[in-house]
């Protein structure tokens, strides 16, 4: 037999009794709303009315937390559902003024479009500032309006298109550093017919003075400064060597040339980490070449 609440008036009050599950009449001490605190034997439907409580427990007795949902051993899900195009929002507030929100926004039109995710921030008056984090539902792309660990959105966009060898690609996108490498000359010039490596008074064997490079780089701007007029029957050729082979970064100071600074700024040679370089000095003439005070190259990393 269906159980019915026994009303004493058309307006239930604290004095109204209801028939509890144990078939005894109990006072409806909550009054007014017609919903017993305990002992409901069927789903309670408040209709369009509101529920106000100090704390709510779902799947568990309400405790000190305002809302406690306990699914126990079952998968537990909290749904925030709305029609297409309607925002779904979790709002974090201070004295009921917005500070942060997790929000799903955007009208869906197929192909996984719309309903994108946002982390939104608000100013002291509760006005929306921007979305520090956004995630496109269709693509999964994460966007930000603010810096990440000091990197601006533009700087982070430099990573766009990176498919492999991140270091190599970053090297091509970030600003480069440059340095000059100097080699001290000698008081006397290179004797006729001699070849030396490293410096004017260096080794006769290139591999003995080859300098290993620790980073990918380019070497350019070869400068050589002579301190006296080149003998008319001499010359001095200075050449950058890469892994034991000559390169296009070279210059020859012809016999008879006045003392001065000679340079090759037109050629640039690329190196990988682990490559080696040195300078070769050749006097193919029949007299001692002019002395040099030093040489330099520019290394761009």
């Amino acid at each position, binding site marked *: 037999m269906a159980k019915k609440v026994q009303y004493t008036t058309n307006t239930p009050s604290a004095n109204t009794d209801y028939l509890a599950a144990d078939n005894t009449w109990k006072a409806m001490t909550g009054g007014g709303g017609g919903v017993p605190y305990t002992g409901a034997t069927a789903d309670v439907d408040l209709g369009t009315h509101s529920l106000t409580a100090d704390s709510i427990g779902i799947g568990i007795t309400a405790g000190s937390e305002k809302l406690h949902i306990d699914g126990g051993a079952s998968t537990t899900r909290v749904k925030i559902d709305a029609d297409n195009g309607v925002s779904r929002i979790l709002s974090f507030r201070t004295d009921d003024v917005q500070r942060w929100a997790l929000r799903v926004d955007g009208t869906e039109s197929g192909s996984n479009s719309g309903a994108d995710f946002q982390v939104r921030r608000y100013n002291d008056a509760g006005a929306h500032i921007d979305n520090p984090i956004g995630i496109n539902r269709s693509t999964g792309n994460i966007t930000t309006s603010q810096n990440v660990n000091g990197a601006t959105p533009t700087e982070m966009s430099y990573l766009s298109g990176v498919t492999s060898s991140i270091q190599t690609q970053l090297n091509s996108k970030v600003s480069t550093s440059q340095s000059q490498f100097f080699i001290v000359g000698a008081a006397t010039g290179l004797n006729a017919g001699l070849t030396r490596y490293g410096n004017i008074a260096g080794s006769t064997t290139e591999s003995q003075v080859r300098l290993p490079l620790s980073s990918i780089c380019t070497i350019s701007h070869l400068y050589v400064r002579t301190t006296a007029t080149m003998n008319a029957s001499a010359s001095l050729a200075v050449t950058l060597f890469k892994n034991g082979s000559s390169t296009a970064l070279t210059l020859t100071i012809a016999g*008879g040339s006045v003392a001065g600074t000679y340079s090759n700024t037109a050629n640039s040679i690329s190196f990988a980490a682990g490559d080696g370089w040195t300078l070769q000095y050749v006097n193919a003439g*029949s007299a001692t070449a002019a002395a040099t005070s030093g040489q330099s190259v520019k290394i761009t990393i």
Partner: protein
Amino acid sequence: MRYVINELDEGVTMIHVLEHNVFFAWDESVEYDSFRVALNDKGIDAFVDLLIQDANTAYTTFING
């Protein structure tokens, strides 16, 4: 263009033979009087040809030849 000529400071003039990266420079001193005479007589292209052939002998050949 086989070469470029640059006027440097202190009256120094430099020829750069481009493809061979051979350089020759002279100044306004009397030491290069013979060179200037030869340059006037034979032209710069003749000297460039010699520089390409042999940077060790070009100057001597140019002023004595």
